[in-house]
């Protein structure tokens, strides 16, 4: 859940306390009613205790848990379909809008290679190839950028990252990290 509250906050703590209080209050009647339903061998009360205990724990925790889901709905629902397409990139500090602009420059049937500056955040260095693999479909990502038809260079020009290419085009700067530049270039023939 994208926007699940990380901390309970005041409302969460109140719901947890209320849930626990209600669970304590209903436990004895629950035990009696569950006992009447479950029965078991004569003198065996453990199944009733187990089921009533599980219900009490559920009563205690469910209001808080469901409130968290409602909070997630409240904060996630306003996300537009356009933004939803690249929310996953943002979890890796990758500016998804930039990637959409990259997609507009590389032909759909082309191959591309990815080079990332050593200075980029680790999340970006590790996540970018896979995000591009998803977001640039059906374009194919080459295992070695030097053999690709197009180059996506993140954090520097292809030349500064060790790849020969035609004059690169600056696509934009990553707003979610250090405003590092992102370039696209056709590979040198």
């Amino acid at each position, binding site marked *: 859940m994208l926007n699940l509250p990380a901390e309970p906050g005041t409302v969460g703590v109140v719901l947890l306390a209320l849930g626990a209080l209600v669970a304590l209050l209903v436990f004895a009647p629950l035990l009696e009613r569950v006992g009447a339903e*479950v029965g*078991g061998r004569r003198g065996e009360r453990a*199944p009733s205790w187990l089921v009533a205990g*599980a219900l009490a*724990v559920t009563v205690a925790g469910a209001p808080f848990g469901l409130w968290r889901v409602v909070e997630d*709905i409240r904060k996630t629902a306003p996300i537009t379909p356009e933004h939803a397409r690249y*929310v996953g990139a943002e979890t890796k500090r990758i500016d998804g809008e930039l990637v959409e602009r990259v997609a507009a420059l590389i032909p759909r049937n082309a191959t591309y290679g990815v080079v990332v500056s050593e200075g980029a955040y680790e999340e970006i260095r590790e996540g970018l190839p896979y995000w591009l693999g*998803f977001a640039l479909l059906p374009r194919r990502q080459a295992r070695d950028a030097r053999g690709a038809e197009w180059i996506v260079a993140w954090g520097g020009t292809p030349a500064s990252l060790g790849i020969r290419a035609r004059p690169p085009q600056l696509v934009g700067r990553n707003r979610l990290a250090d405003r590092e530049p992102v370039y696209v270039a056709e590979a040198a023939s």
Partner: protein
Amino acid sequence: MIRDLLALAFGNACLVAAGHGVLRAVGLRPAYADLPWALGVAYLAGAAVVGVLSSALLVLGLALTWWQIVLLCGAVFAVGLARRGTLRQPVRAGTAGWTRVLPLGTFLALSILAVDLAVQPIWTDDAWSIWAAKANSIAALGGLDPSLLSSAGVFNADYPLLVPVLELVALRFCGIPNELVPLQLGLVFLAFPAALVALLRDRARPVVLWTVALAVSVAPSLQIQAASAVADVPLAVFFALAGVTGWRWVEEGEGAMLGLAASFGAAAVATKVEGGVFVVLLVVGLAVAALRLGRPLRALVATALAIAVSALPWVVWARVHGLGNAYSDGGGAGAVDLAAAVDRVPRAAFAIARELADPSSWLALALLAAGAALLGLRRPGARGAALFTCFVGLASLVALVGVYWTTPLDFEFHIATSARRVVTAPLLFAAAMAPLLLASGRR
């Protein structure tokens, strides 16, 4: 959005129809008004069988367009209609008195979750890098493309196809890009409590059954994973249902239950790599239990063979095209000095135990599963089921410890990013068995 929701409903109605075909094919004919059977079991049986068959059809070169999905569902339904002989109608049983609040609570919790799934984007790493990437590539390229799947941008390319197939239902019926993929995949979880109740209600007490269903519905980790559009919850659902139906075959010898166990077991294998290991352990547990009860093993052996054959097309195709995963790309178990890494075993076991014992993940679910297994071991009428549950559940956890022991990935990273998810299937299986373990007083 409304148009997409209607299209999604149509696509899933096709899966329900296919599920009714599966139920008829195994000898069951639930009433259409019997919703836990008609929508719960039928939906999951349809998703399982269509998912497994679609994986094979993709390997054979089909694009799995919307009309091909409709035709496939229609064919599965027709197979059910063609079955001769008498069909058993499952008995209907309801709740009475105060216990009616339990299904109401379950329905409320699942309804809120359904809304959350409908607004959820695809955002977790595994969701987009493994599952959605594969589904989108099939949709964009008109089928499986080995050159794309073996390219650098696809993570864990040899993971099985059932989850991408289910996501394709959303992509094909609603169009791409599509934001309803998390809801589509989450339907497997939303259908599970009703399916479990339907499968066990003639055998377990309503209060126990609905307590488990409610505990499943509100377990935070299950809700979060369902909304993450990853494969662990579908695997857990299919594995748990395979276990429950398999055990019912052992107890009562009803072929219909073994047929369902085969469907759900094949689906578990087609969902995630570890599903294959879990299902092998399940079959071993069923075989031992069947032998103890003097039940002939022929049908079980045929079931195991059918499950193995169902997995072959994708396994062979992936091997032929050299697809790998992070584990194999890292050199596999051979890249690890197992003697030097033996300290990983207790650390992995501790991490798994800690995840299972975390009430903020499972609320009452782990308590119910463990408590029912312990009580079952003490009760003569439930001891066999309890031994089976303990064997399959614990052996699955041991298998996971083995994976962490032999992982060529960074151990701490691997366990930190996966332990919470991978324990889901063994836990949900044990929880699903709980109503049977607490039911011995009834029969």
